[in-house]
């Protein structure tokens, strides 16, 4: 062991020498020569160049393009980086790109953007302009020509409300540091519609090239590259053909309606028909086949930053608010389109029977309250009728009675679970809550109940007289014909009629069918029809479908609108609705299921200030059905003025 001790000393000495060498070198590098290293580190730096990801495209159900990308040569100006003589520089630039300097100036001064953001001032410039500017870079600090990928719309303004638009990221977006954390100041962001809803899929991920540069800003070497990942494509349930038909029918219908003089309005006059919506939905899947909203706009207006003219057309006082999607973003009283749901609720709770008969007098008075008279839409006494007939001719007084019966149930048990039977049944159909459709800013409408009314009376004491502030018989009676405080969106009505059509299933409606990754894998979206099933028997739902099929037949409220329509080939079940909305003209509704006995489509039309349901909405739906089934169109028909 003695020897090995001395040999271990040899090992220890070798190791000690190693440490001596390392420590000496470390001292030299970190203490003696540190200053020069620090300078050298300061002289070199990394420059990151971001490469844009191509935004995902949007296709219809048969993969026909709705939104694509194309390259536009843009001249961009960064206000912060302009020459000291900015005015002179902009004048020279104005000469080259042929845009008045005043316009460039105005664009740059816009408060929508920060000064460090490169602001596009000219789009689709000539290659010559691009070459000139890149060859004279020194004369134009802060000016660059960029090949930008911009949105292209092969079908013009079709489905504008569904697609939405993209615009350069706004100051408001940038302020939202959570959602737009990874965005740069020149990024395009979906600002409405699917472009907004699916922003995180469409955006893709930017690439990044990293360069080592020296103090002269020269690139020494490329250090690495993270390639850009293109955004995902959206494949919709929307069908371009159905969409074209729906948009055409809505536009034609509104134009036609504006030529109708309606005596029954207060005051009588030409119908204003200032807005409207059409939805075509597949009741078996919840897929939206078409969604039209009027007035409309063109998403390509945002491709080259919104011009003054276009801004006035979409935001101006007389623009009619075309950006609003009337199918989902506004809610209206549903009128008589509500009656099938009331009938089902009344039957389920034992207030009505589909085998019984009910009187249909011209007036209804709630027992004990002779001061309030509820009128039927006609002054004729229509005798004693079945629920089917009550739906066919849309007898209000039959439903007043059902509403009153619901009120009695409430009155008998104000705090119990029977207190809001009617509201609960309507909410089961999806009313009063957002449908969770995949389009942004959906409104939920309102199913009023005693709690809501008490709160409303508290918040708005000026609206309701003191004796009107509690829940009254009239609240239930009005709701039974889709009047009063109740409001719904056309999309909610489409979901509810789909449930009648598909045997009682509530669908989550969806515009996007699936999402396709750049590498080809597909992901379905979360729209389906098997979540909730309503508490109605198939026989009950079939009874309603059959009853509604008589609405378009002789004697029904939509018989005039469907006169001459080949119902024997394509039977149509439908319901008219006329909702009063003083001081405005009536809201016109029509909800349809085709073919009536095995529905493939649920079609909803709504025309604001469009008069009776049969006047404007029913003819629009007829025109849509004619288009979908290739039936010779008779043009816009006169629907008469029944309900």
């Amino acid at each position: 062991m003695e020897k090995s001790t001395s040999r271990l000393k040899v090992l220890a000495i070798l190791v000690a020498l190693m440490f001596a060498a390392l420590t000496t070198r470390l001292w030299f590098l970190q203490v003696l020569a540190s200053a020069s290293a620090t300078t050298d580190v300061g002289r070199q730096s990394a420059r990151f160049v971001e490469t844009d990801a191509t935004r995902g495209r949007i296709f219809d159900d048969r993969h026909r393009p709705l939104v694509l990308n194309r390259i536009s040569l843009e001249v961009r100006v960064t206000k912060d980086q302009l020459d000291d003589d900015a005015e002179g520089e902009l004048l020279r630039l104005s000469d080259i790109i042929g845009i008045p300097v005043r316009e460039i100036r105005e664009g740059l001064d816009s408060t929508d953007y920060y000064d460090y953001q490169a602001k596009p001032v000219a789009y689709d410039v000539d290659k010559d302009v691009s070459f000139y500017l890149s060859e004279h870079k020194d004369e134009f600090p802060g000016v660059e020509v960029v090949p930008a990928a911009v949105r292209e719309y092969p079908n013009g303004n079709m489905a504008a409300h569904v697609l939405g638009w993209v615009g350069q990221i706004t100051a408001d977006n940038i302020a939202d540091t959570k959602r737009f954390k990874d965005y740069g100041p020149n990024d395009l962001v979906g600002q409405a519609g699917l472009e907004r809803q699916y922003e995180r899929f469409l955006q893709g991920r930017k690439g990044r090239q990293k360069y080592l540069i020296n103090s002269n800003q020269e690139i020494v070497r490329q250090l690495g590259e993270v390639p850009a990942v293109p955004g995902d494509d959206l494949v919709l349930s929307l069908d371009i053909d159905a969409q074209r038909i729906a948009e055409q029918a809505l536009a034609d219908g509104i134009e036609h309606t504006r030529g109708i003089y309606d005596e029954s309005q207060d005051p009588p006059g030409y119908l204003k028909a200032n807005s409207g919506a059409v939805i075509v939905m597949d009741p078996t899947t919840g897929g939206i086949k078409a969604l039209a909203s009027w007035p409309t706009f063109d998403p390509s207006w945002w491709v080259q930053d919104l011009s003054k003219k276009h801004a006035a057309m979409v935001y101006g006082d007389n623009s009619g608010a075309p950006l609003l999607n009337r199918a989902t973003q506004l809610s209206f009283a549903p009128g008589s389109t509500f009656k099938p749901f009331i009938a089902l609720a009344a039957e389920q709770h034992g207030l009505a029977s589909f085998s019984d008969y009910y009187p249909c007098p011209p007036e209804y008075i709630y027992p004990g309250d002779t001061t309030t008279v509820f009128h039927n839409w006609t002054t004729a006494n229509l005798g004693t009728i079945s629920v089917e007939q009550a739906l066919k001719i849309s007898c209000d007084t039959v439903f007043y009675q059902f509403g009153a019966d619901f009120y009695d149930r409430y009155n008998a048990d104000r705090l119990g679970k029977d207190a809001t039977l009617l509201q609960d049944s309507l909410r089961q159909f999806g009313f009063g809550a957002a449908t969770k459709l995949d389009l942004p800013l959906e409104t939920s409408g309102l199913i009023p109940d005693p709690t809501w009314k008490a709160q409303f009376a508290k918040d708005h004491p000026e609206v309701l007289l003191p004796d009107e502030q509690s829940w009254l018989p009239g609240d239930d009676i009005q709701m039974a014909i889709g009047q009063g405080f109740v409001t719904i969106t056309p999309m909610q009505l489409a979901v509810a009629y789909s449930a009648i059509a598909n045997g009682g299933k509530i669908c989550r409606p969806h515009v996007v069918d699936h999402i396709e990754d750049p590498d080809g894998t597909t992901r379905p979206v979360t729209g389906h029809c098997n979540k909730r099933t309503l508490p109605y028997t198939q026989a009950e739902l079939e009874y309603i479908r059959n009853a509604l099929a008589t609405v378009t037949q002789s004697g029904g409220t939509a018989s005039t609108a469907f006169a001459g329509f080949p119902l024997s080939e394509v039977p149509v079940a439908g319901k008219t609705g006329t909702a009063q909305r003083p001081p405005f003209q009536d809201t016109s509704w029509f909800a349809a299921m085709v073919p009536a006995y095995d529905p493939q489509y649920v079609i909803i039309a709504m025309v604001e200030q469009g008069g009776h349901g049969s006047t404007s909405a029913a003819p629009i739906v007829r025109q849509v059905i004619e288009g979908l089934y290739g039936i010779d169109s008779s043009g816009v028909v006169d629907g008469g003025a029944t309900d």
Partner: protein
Amino acid sequence: MDLVAGRSFANERRPIRHLDPVLLIATACLTIVGLLSIYSSTHRGLEVLHEDPMIYVKKQVAGLILGILLLLIIATVDYRFFKVYAGFIYAATVLALILVRLPGIGSTANGAQRWFQFAGFQITPSEFAKIALILMLAAMLSELRTTEPMLPDVLRVCIVSAVPMILVFIQPDIGTTIVLVAIVVGILVVAGTRLRHLLALAAASVVLVALAFQLHVIRDYQIARLTSFLDPQNSEDVTKYNRDQAELAIGAGGLFGSGYLNGVQTNLDFVPEQHTDFIFTVVGEEFGFVGAAFVLMLFAILIWRAIRISYLSKDPFGTYVAAGVASMFAIQMFVNVGMVLGIMPITGIPLPFVSYGGSAMLANFIAAGLLLNVHMRRFK
């Protein structure tokens, strides 16, 4: 139970009571420095890729847990057990080194065939070859009839060492080959090999290496990497870049460093392979001379304890095992830090316990386990 002067030493002599706390603390400190440095050098790059910035740290911790388990297992079994099975362990390792060369079994990266891909883990047999060689040589030399190895013994040692060395060298992995050489030399010196035998060995090695260059067994890129520190101005671009950036990072650290996560070179990812071979640059830049010297001191403590354990061992096998481990830690530390500081060639040797990497981590913990084992059972 031993009885000395009528007293029972049973309790005192239970091996578990004789762990080496200094060794354990030094090892723990080095692994913590490693985790901090790995996070510092990788989190930013991972954030850019929208990946979990902790992913490397998490993987290293997983390796660490496995390493500690191995350390405990190795320390529990009496080290003389390994002497009995040294031949078997050696043969298994040589087999693994051969298998890793076979296409379809071993995996290739950067032109080198080095590891097995197994259940998501990379297993690098050359890391375990170090341990196997230590055990094999210690077993051979502890069974000599003479007090010191004679020429035939030295030749036998050379042949036994040459097999794994050549297999590792042709992978090619020059770094590990250097470590294997250092292990052989370290154990031979401690075993009492005569100076003239050692010198003859050195001469033979020089001839063999020269021959290897002549026959182009060594690839061009390896020559470039090996020689760039001798001629920094004319070396190949990438190698010079690695070396320059590493030195700048160390130099920029100064006396006290830029502070944790504040290193410019580290944050901008200028130093290549920073979480593995060049991890010392993170310490150098962010903790300065003070931090770097502290890490060197931890290594000094580690190696001192290894040599001390070699000295305390009750039998030659334990002495040689500990000496082999000491040589292994010392050469790895010296070549790695020397490379970062520009005084040694660039040869991918990881810094023990600090660099990111699973197999090396496991091999180092096994080595530490062997040291503890010898220390715990030092009483006759």
